[in-house]
């Protein structure tokens, strides 16, 4: 029998390595019609900010080759609404709950984490320093090692449970950011968030997105994300959560072999809401076929020449 459970440290233990990525599964409920949420390793719920955000104007989405651009812009009702109205609905879910936290200042991040402290079913926060679709903060924190570290140091002060940091791929050397947040006290890193891109409607001579640029996700960028996960997993000692263009179990295994301890399914939920549960079954079968008893046998198992 294969043991799929994975311990990312500091209290984030998951029954298997497959999570739903923030911003692609709402609060889990949207996918509950299609999958049994309790079969998942974890769910990273919608990016949550201190104050409610309306998000960006429409259009917010355009399809690209093997991918899509989005410009949602962290639409959410704010942390207080989450605490009062959403948490009570999802607290009983039998899966690890992670709250993705965004802000436009260090104080924002701290304030959101502070509001989440009483919610004992929240196993971890995922500090999002990589959203490409907000004017202030977001990605700007994730492209500078010292700013990234500053956010983590501050959040670490008041958040004692698992602290995951979501990294942006829009950098020259992602290992520098990963090391900076590790030294600042992060328990794990998740990567990658979306790639900054744009697309133009040539007949109208206008960008497809209201914000001109948006975040590119989907299978198209998987080779870049896998490379970054491979680099980062060798650069840090904390666990790496891999995401970026996973469309099936094979893709999930690719990230695990590259060095990820767990994976997140994102855009694929839009195409097949059952991708995550299919991936879990594939991983179990794969590990059996390759005589891998537990997750330590598959994480980073890629052989190099």
């Amino acid at each position, binding site marked *: 029998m294969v043991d799929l459970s994975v311990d990312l440290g500091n209290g984030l233990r998951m029954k298997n390595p497959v999570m739903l990525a923030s*911003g*692609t*599964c*709402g609060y889990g409920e*949207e*996918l509950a*019609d*299609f999958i049994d949420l309790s079969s998942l390793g974890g769910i990273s719920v919608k990016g949550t900010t201190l104050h409610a955000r*309306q*998000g960006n104007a*429409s*259009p*917010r*989405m*355009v*399809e*690209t*080759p*093997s*991918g*899509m651009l*989005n410009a*949602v812009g962290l*639409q959410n009702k704010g942390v207080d609404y989450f605490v009062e109205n959403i948490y009570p609905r999802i607290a009983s879910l039998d899966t690890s709950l992670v709250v993705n936290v965004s802000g436009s200042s260090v104080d924002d991040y701290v304030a959101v984490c502070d509001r989440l402290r009483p919610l004992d079913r929240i196993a971890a926060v995922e500090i999002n320093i990589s959203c490409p679709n907000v004017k202030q903060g977001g990605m700007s924190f994730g492209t500078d090692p010292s700013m990234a570290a500053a956010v983590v140091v501050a959040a670490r002060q008041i958040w004692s449970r698992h602290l995951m940091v979501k990294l942006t791929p829009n950098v020259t050397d992602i290992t520098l950011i990963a090391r900076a947040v590790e030294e600042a006290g992060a328990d794990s890193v998740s990567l990658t968030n979306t790639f900054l891109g744009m697309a133009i409607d040539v007949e109208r001579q206008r960008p497809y997105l209201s914000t001109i640029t948006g975040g590119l996700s*989907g*299978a198209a960028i998987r080779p870049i994300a896998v490379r970054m996960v491979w680099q980062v997993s060798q650069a840090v000692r904390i666990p790496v959560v891999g995401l970026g263009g996973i469309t099936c179990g094979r893709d999930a295994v690719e990230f695990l072999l590259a060095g990820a301890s767990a994976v997140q399914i994102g*855009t694929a*939920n*839009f*195409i*097949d*809401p059952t991708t995550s549960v299919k991936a879990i079954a594939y991983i179990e079968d794969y590990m059996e076929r390759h005589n891998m008893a537990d997750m330590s046998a598959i994480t980073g198992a890629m052989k190099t020449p």
Partner: protein
Amino acid sequence: MDFKVREVVPHGRNYALLRMMPVKGEMPEVEPGQFVQVEIPNSKSTYLRRPISINWADRREMWLLVRRAGAGTNALCDLPEGSRLSIILPLGRGFDLSVRGNVLLVGGGVGTAPLLMLGKRLVTLGVDVKFLLGARTTSDLLQLELFKQTGETRVTTEDGSMGHRGLVTDHPLLTDGEIDHIACCGPLPMMKAVAAIARSRGISCEVSLENMMACGIGACLCCVEDTVDAGNVCVCKEGPVFNIKRLKW
């Protein structure tokens, strides 16, 4: 669920009617105005599913009326009969079926598709249904016979090749007719113009929106419409049909 395409009937050069049945089991209950998300099996340049409104459905069969708008919809219109399709359905909220009195269903182009099922349903509910269908030219007027069988049907064409010359918003039935409720589906400018007339005449009005969509299940927040009562809401989940009272048009 998986469907088998029984028939692909070209409607002119730019449209096709896909008739399909579930590979196993019965069709789920479907409300007029709901839509489906279709996976495109045979297009190299299509990544996401395509949202398509339901033209007609019963417990055995479903019709999708598809306009050739790009690689994805072209691939659907070119499907060989017998093809299998993975479809998520039914999605969204349909039209209000509690309306009574004189109900005018206003459609433009392929936007007439969901009005066929709506009209037939309202008739069974004893509602007096009239159709006002607009198109650029005669060949863009789809399923006209089916509409006429269902209720009184008026037509407008921009080139005057059939019916009243001009836009649906020029038609006296809309501007002066005795109407208690309007249900509208078509190009955005047309729906906004119809909504303006409805407002000015104090007639209740529903429209079916088509905002760019990724997931269709309320997860991605890409297709939002700004509402009076709740700000940005997902068209795929709260809509696609909205009463214009909720919209900031």
